């Protein structure tokens, strides 16, 4: 089996639109949450959201390339630009060398809804415009980025709800381990427009602490009242170890473990058993024991049930070793389809600069979360091996283990 390393990262999120800004926000425990007044007008229960600036791509991409990119694709392009630069790669390289792309994405609602509205008004499908179809499909990010960067290897999108980004990295690692690809551009993207999250808001899953938006997302806290939706994109360049060494690439870490499971129970409620199984399988895959893990980046989204089940699962697997845990979603909100990839980027930034980002807004853990070693304040620590959890609707679970070389 080949070894898989990470040689470039890029991030575009509500806590920063590049690695340096994001690293500083993580270290300071800075929240990126705010209020979108359009949501109240539209009928949302909660106007809270991660505030992500829209990039201006004029001059960076041609008209044809821009017309086909939806919001999440624009974020993905920005994150990928940074990741490729970080890895010393570009179109010139891909014209001569094969590389693939796998990206997590599970909606493109704005594009679908706007096309529908155009057709309702004009009664003519042509008047939806040429970009509508390419913006509307779940695979929009991979179809756009593969053509922008001339990628000629594996090319598809992974839709696995809020575990999309994490499964993408796990599957990417498998393709490289099996020797099928030397390099894959991986990541996750999430649209943040008000059209995309309305039906999720309808489930009463979102926090309504509008009086203090930056305190609204409070994973594991006793008084949490729901998640805050957020988005952006994160890109992670996966590369076969020998290939990276030969290229003289900088190596952030090795992906040594990928564990997955499906709860097979409820469409929205999580399961401690399924979550624990994903973590256990990741440890088995990495041939590590729970006490080898220096830090866990939890999935914990600040929902009442979700955090409880994850706390039970972490306690079951890591209780004896009291492994430090934090959820970065207190700062970022829930970056949904992107979260599995962005949280790997956040963890890599922590590993690089030897600190654990705080689980902000944790004033008093609930009874089950009390059993965990939750890091509420930024803590300096050398991190050699870290685990990142991601869980999604439909009971899909993913855990990744990263090891510094």
């Amino acid at each position: 089996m080949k070894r898989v390393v990470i040689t470039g990262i890029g991030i575009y999120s509500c806590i920063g639109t590049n690695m340096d800004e994001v690293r500083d926000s993580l270290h300071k425990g800075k929240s990126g949450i705010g209020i979108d007044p359009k949501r109240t007008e539209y009928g949302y229960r909660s106007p809270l959201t991660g505030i992500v600036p829209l990039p201006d791509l004029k001059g960076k991409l041609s008209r044809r390339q821009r017309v086909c990119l939806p919001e999440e694709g624009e974020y993905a392009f920005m994150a990928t630009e940074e990741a490729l630069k970080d890895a010393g790669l570009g179109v010139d390289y891909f014209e001569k060398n094969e590389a693939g792309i796998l990206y997590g994405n599970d909606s493109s609602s704005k594009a679908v809804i706007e096309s529908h509205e155009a057709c309702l008004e004009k009664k003519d499908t042509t008047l939806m415009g040429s970009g509508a179809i390419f913006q509307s499909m779940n695979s929009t990010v991979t179809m756009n980025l593969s053509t922008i960067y001339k990628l000629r290897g594996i090319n598809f999108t992974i839709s696995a709800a809020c575990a999309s980004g994490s499964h993408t990295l796990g599957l990417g690692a498998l393709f490289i381990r099996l020797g099928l690809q030397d390099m894959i551009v991986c990541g996750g993207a999430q649209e943040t427009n008000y059209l995309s999250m309305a039906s999720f808001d309808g489930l009463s899953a979102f926090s309504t602490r509008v009086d203090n938006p930056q305190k609204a997302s409070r994973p594991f806290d006793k008084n949490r009242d729901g998640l805050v939706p957020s988005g952006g994109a994160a890109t992670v360049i996966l590369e076969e170890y020998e290939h990276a060494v030969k290229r003289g690439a900088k190596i952030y870490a090795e992906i040594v473990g990928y564990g997955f499971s499906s709860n097979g129970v409820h469409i929205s409620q999580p399961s401690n058993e399924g979550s624990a199984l994903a973590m256990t399988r990741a440890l088995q895959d990495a041939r590590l024991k729970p006490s080898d893990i220096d830090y866990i980046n939890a999935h914990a989204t600040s929902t009442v049930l979700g955090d409880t089940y994850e706390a039970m699962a972490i306690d079951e697997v890591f209780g004896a070793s009291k492994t430090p845990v934090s959820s970065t979603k207190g700062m970022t909100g829930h970056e949904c389809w992107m979260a599995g990839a962005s949280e790997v980027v956040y963890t890599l930034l922590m590993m690089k600069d030897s600190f654990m980002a705080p689980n902000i807004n944790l004033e008093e853990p609930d009874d089950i979360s009390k059993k965990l070693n939750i890091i509420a304040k930024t803590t300096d620590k050398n991190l050699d091996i870290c685990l990142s959890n991601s869980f999604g609707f439909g009971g899909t679970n993913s855990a990744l283990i990263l090891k510094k070389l």
Partner: protein
Amino acid sequence: MKMSKMNREEIVEIINNFLIEDIEIEQESLKEKAFLKEDLGIDSLDFVDIVVVVEQKFGFKIKPEEMSKVKTLLQFYDYIENKIKEG
């Protein structure tokens, strides 16, 4: 301005403006003899967007089967002018 009152110059100005602004074609490329595909680089997807812009600017829809006969910018100006005259 009422569309039927537009003269040739005004029509050409509107077309050139949207080709520059919306389709992002370089101004200096806009010569009457220019071929839409070969010289201006307008591909089949761009034609869809031209249909959208024409509908917005002139209020009528150009038919793709008619547009297939339009090869040069001059023919495009003529086509739009004739459609306006037809009402």
